[in-house]
């Protein structure tokens, strides 16, 4: 297989997993990487668990979906149960520490299972709206598929029109990105 990094990101509809995937892949595109991003869609695109399958590498990406991800991230209890199947011996499985009642549902075969206080941090230190950007920082921290600088450029591209109206938003988003990055980068995963 090629060396593309395989990421599965899952959450409730409205948690913004697809926009994280969009910004992340945009940043990778700006770096000249090869990318394949496929959202799950269909019935689940309304009110179900939303999953983004993202692969980023240096060569053309193969098939759109994969059996086992390198990084699998779940942002809700349903998401934990839904994407456990994408975990394997090489997988780092990350979930939000605030999710309750999923102890028995966490994948047993993953290389590492990591709970991060993303939701709590976003709510208390930043703003609930930047939760998904914090998650994006975590993904980058775990994979280094793009640099934080490129990620910021991509965020600027996507949300720049909002930042012009309210420059504080920019600062908050960038901070969320960095906080998310640190949460995982500091754990020795990547």
């Amino acid at each position, binding site marked *: 297989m090629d060396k593309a990094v395989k990421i599965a990101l899952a959450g409730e509809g409205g948690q913004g997993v697809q926009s994280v995937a969009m910004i992340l892949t945009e940043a990778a595109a700006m770096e000249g990487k090869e990318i394949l991003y496929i959202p799950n869609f*269909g019935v689940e695109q309304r009110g179900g668990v939303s999953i983004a399958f993202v692969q980023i590498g240096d060569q053309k990406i193969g*098939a*759109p*979906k*994969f*059996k*086992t991800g390198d990084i699998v991230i779940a942002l809700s209890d349903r998401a934990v149960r839904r994407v456990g199947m994408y975990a394997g011996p090489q997988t780092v499985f990350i979930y939000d520490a605030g999710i309750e009642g999923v102890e028995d549902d966490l994948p047993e075969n993953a290389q590492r299972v990591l709970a991060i206080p993303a939701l709590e941090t976003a709510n208390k230190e930043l703003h609930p709206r930047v939760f998904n950007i914090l998650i994006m920082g975590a993904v980058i921290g775990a994979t280094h598929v793009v640099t934080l600088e490129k990620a910021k450029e991509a965020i600027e591209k996507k949300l720049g029109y909002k930042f012009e109206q309210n420059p504080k938003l920019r600062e908050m988003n960038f901070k969320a990105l960095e906080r998310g990055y640190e949460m995982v980068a500091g754990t020795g995963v990547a």
Partner: protein
Amino acid sequence: MGEKPIQGEQKAFMTGNEAVAWAALAAGAEIMYGYPITPQNEIMQYWTRLAPKYDKKFLQTEDELSAGFTTVGGVLAGRRAFTATAGPGNVLMQEPMSMAEAMRIPTVVVVQQRGGPSTATVIYSQQEVTLTCFGGNGEGLRVVYSTSSHQELFDYTIKAFNTAWKYRFPTFVLADGYQAKMRESLVLYDPQEKGQKMVPTEAFVGKPGTPGEDRAPAHLRNTYNIEEELMDVLSKDIKEYEEMTPEIIEYEEFNTEDTDLLVIAHGIVFRSAAMAARELAEEGLKVGYFRPITLRPFPREELRKAAAKAKQLLVVESSYGQLLKIVKDNLYGMDVPIKTHLRPGVGITPEEVVADVKTILGEEE
């Protein structure tokens, strides 16, 4: 207005549906007719955003019958016209495309396959192969390109217009929900700048002059009086279809000399098959692949040549044997064993193909 939509080569990262809309623009398509159905909606959505900037037109119709028949009308008026559909919409689309087939009207249809039968899923499948290749109450005199990437979606959508207008058979670009919805990179270009000439269009009706005075009237029909009359028309069409075949068939192959196992797949599944075959070949196994790009007409001789050098075949597809049926038909009389990996309406990963190939080759030892 009227400026070129694409200048120079542009690297882009977009969905397949977007790639189709850009390709149609690049090909000089003038009008799209369409009816909403997932997963092709974004083709219409991008087209309607882009079209006014370049003086192009769009009509949202009342159903796919109308989308198909208005496309037929657009072509009769001499325009590069196209439509896009999927699943149950593709079922309805067969009626107008049957008329296009009967009257040699060069329509272009992009199909983004979804699960079937019936409404099934809006997600993905390879279950519209039979329908797209042989739908309608006729002989399947149409051209079907099965793409596997966004670059191919772009390339073959452009090519479809040229094949249609050159040979006057309805032409389909057959992709799927994955290709429609996923994002990946591709290079957009203007075919003319690359020296790819667009085949000129020609009006079937409304040519200059008064019919009956300056020129003969166009009297176009698809109904015939007697059996023999129909047979004459069809014989001519079939002959021209067969003469066209060697000029347009396309395929890809790898490791087909002395192969223990030849994997056969098309469309997006081909990507998994190719990855698996290459990985296994690197491990030293004699595994190759054969991928038809034109499903209609089919690269028959080429497949037979590759199959003759293989100990056995493995057909992999996201349907319960629609490609398999075509493969068997084309290999008739050969005794090479065929194994299958059939998953109707479900995607197939490279890992699964690798595991399957290893199991099959393991059994042989």
